């Protein structure tokens, strides 16, 4: 596809919007993009159709139970893909094959082979791809600018703490004898009400798969290096649904990267009681000339008042233009034939790092990411 410089507004097809719908809303926040249709496959279960329909009604656009027909009939140039994790790559590949640029929710996939299929489809169809990410949060942008200015010299180590202080159903150890284990998909569907259904899908996923894209995208952007080796420990430490389904809610990863850069990632869904706000999210970058300690939550404002609900964050983030800046990055990539901030290859590399970490946690030894990259 050639650069599309003459298009004022890109019509977007929302291909399934069953998870929290922040991706589609983020796309719609940019004036160069307009949502024109919601579409999904007809054989999807009722709960999927209900969510798609609800979103379509809110945005006053049609819901079409036929993806290919919607792509053909509504003149969409961009697909916004946010179904269950297993269907991410499948829908994105179909959109790419139809000549659409793609914005996709995380994770890229829970199968590396699916990532490969998507990388190939994006390249073959010469369309742009954006994995949704948080790289344009103000503190992350500031960290990037500081590093790019040369203020810390050459980064040689990077550490990210990424703790989400959210609950995920009943705490670990709460299941009574004789009770059945919690069903993953049923739990995720129910969790939609409070937006904690990031792992929606049939196959259970731990925090590394669900949220790992964010910190690993930070590391990738701030170092410009590929992860070559990972060593990890994982645990089901907090939530019954994770314990019942054998997927981690806490993980630590040691990373070895190009140019002898090393790093670590600590990630977990650590429970709502463990932090007064969304969670402790920090970046630390050591360089040859100086080091950076960055709170991802800054800037923020504190608001307290009598009768404040327990679950209302006391500290609220400010100046967040992440959605707009992601889409600005995306439109620029489309119109200059450039790359997005997290393109398909980057998304695939991040998935490979997660796979290596999980394999390491299983085997107890470091795993070469390169072996997975070569697949």
């Amino acid at each position, binding site marked *: 596809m050639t650069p599309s410089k003459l298009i004022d507004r890109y019509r977007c097809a929302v291909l399934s919007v069953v998870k929290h719908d922040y991706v589609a809303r983020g796309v719609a926040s940019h004036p160069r993009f307009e949502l024109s249709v919601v579409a999904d496959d007809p054989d999807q279960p009722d709960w999927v159709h209900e969510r798609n329909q609800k979103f379509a009604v809110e945005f006053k656009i049609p819901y079409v139970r036929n993806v290919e027909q919607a792509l053909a009939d509504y003149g969409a140039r961009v697909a916004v893909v946010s179904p269950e994790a297993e269907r991410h790559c499948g829908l994105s590949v179909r959109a790419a094959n139809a000549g659409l640029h793609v914005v996709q929710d995380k994770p890229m996939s829970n199968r590396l082979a699916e990532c490969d299929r998507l990388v190939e489809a994006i390249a073959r169809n010469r369309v742009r791809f954006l994995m949704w990410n948080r790289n344009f949060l103000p503190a992350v942008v500031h960290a990037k600018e500081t590093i790019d200015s040369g203020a810390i010299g*050459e980064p*040689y*180590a990077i*550490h990210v*703490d990424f*703790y989400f*202080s959210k609950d995920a159903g009943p*705490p*670990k150890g709460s299941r009574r004898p004789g009770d059945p284990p919690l069903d993953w998909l049923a739990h995720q569907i129910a969790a939609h009400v409070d937006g904690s259904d990031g792992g929606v899908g049939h196959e259970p996923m731990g925090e590394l798969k669900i949220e790992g894209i964010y910190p690993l995208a930070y590391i990738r952007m701030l170092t410009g290096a590929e992860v070559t080796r990972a*060593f990890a*420990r994982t*645990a*089901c*430490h*907090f939530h019954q649904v994770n314990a019942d389904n054998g997927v981690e809610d*806490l993980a*630590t990863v*040691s990373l*070895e990267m190009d*140019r*002898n*850069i*090393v790093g*670590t990632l*600590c990630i*977990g869904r*650590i*429970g709502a*009681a*463990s*932090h007064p706000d969304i969670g*402790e999210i*920090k970046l*630390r970058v*050591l360089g040859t*000339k*100086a*080091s950076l*300690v960055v*709170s991802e939550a800054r800037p923020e404002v504190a608001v307290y008042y009598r009768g404040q609900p327990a679950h209302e964050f006391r500290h609220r983030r400010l100046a967040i233009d992440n959605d707009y800046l992601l889409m600005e990055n995306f439109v620029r990539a489309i119109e200059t034939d450039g790359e997005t901030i997290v393109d398909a290859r980057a998304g695939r590399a991040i998935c490979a790092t997660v796979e290596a970490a999980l394999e390491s946690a299983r085997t*107890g*030894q*470091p795993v070469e990411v390169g072996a997975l990259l070569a697949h």
Partner: protein
Amino acid sequence: MVRLALIGALDAAAKYQRIVPRLVGARITAVVESDLEAARRLAKSVDAPAWSTGLDDLLLHHAGVFDALIVHDAVGAIEDECRRAVDMGKHLLVSAPQLDSPGLLEIGNAAEQAKLRFMWGPPVRHLPAVKIMKESLASGKMGELGLVRMHHWEPSAVRCLLPAIDLVCSLFNQAPSVVYATCGKPATPTLAMSDYVQLHLGFPGCGMAVLDSARTGPHSDGYFSLSLIGSTGAAYADDHHDMQLLYNEGHPAALKTDQGDRPLLTQLQEFVAAIVDARAPQPGAVEARRAFEVAQAAEKSLATRRAIQLAAKSQ
């Protein structure tokens, strides 16, 4: 009253002056500094009747005036003298990071065999934040400890990895069962050569720890951060939170709020109490051995690029 000999504390003279009157059950009775006049001045400031220019000289001429040695900072290579002090029945607190070596372990073992009190390490364990975090953990409020995350960046070429390892082990109250180590650029095969190292520890059960130690970096005040993630709560101590801003030309500077005398005072009081109560201080020889074992495993991990299994044993 426990009589203490203080070695190499000139740089911290003012701090000791403030602390000595607050010490319960102990007083400083001897001082060692390489410069005689400095030794005399320091002795006077802490009201110590004896002073000397070397530990060897102190042991030779003033052995009768003190019961225990506090090596605040090493005056030259004094491992042999520390060993001799133990042989002469002196309790020993080595907070000098220069003694962060296998020699320290031997001295600790000798002290333990002689039923003397041996304590080591800079007072990381005794930081006020660490004390509060440990109390919260011990109270059960935070549930089962799942993760310890620690950053320890030193302001000088001194390596303080062992105290960091000790602190992590003390939080889990056991040694790790798995050790994986990596080091930064330039990649070097040994801990001694590495200016930067990160350790990844796995503990029996599902506990894990990640810590990194940097030296020779431009961290003029050092940087310390410790997070404990428990099953029902978490605790965060971070120098980042304790910074004040100095506005001047250009960007403002971040100035770390000093934690005062409390860490050193708590460490000294623990040492004195262990002597009085005839119990092992924390951290003592057992903890030194544990930290060394982990450091040795880290060394092996660096050399082999593999995770090293350690036999689990409760402490």
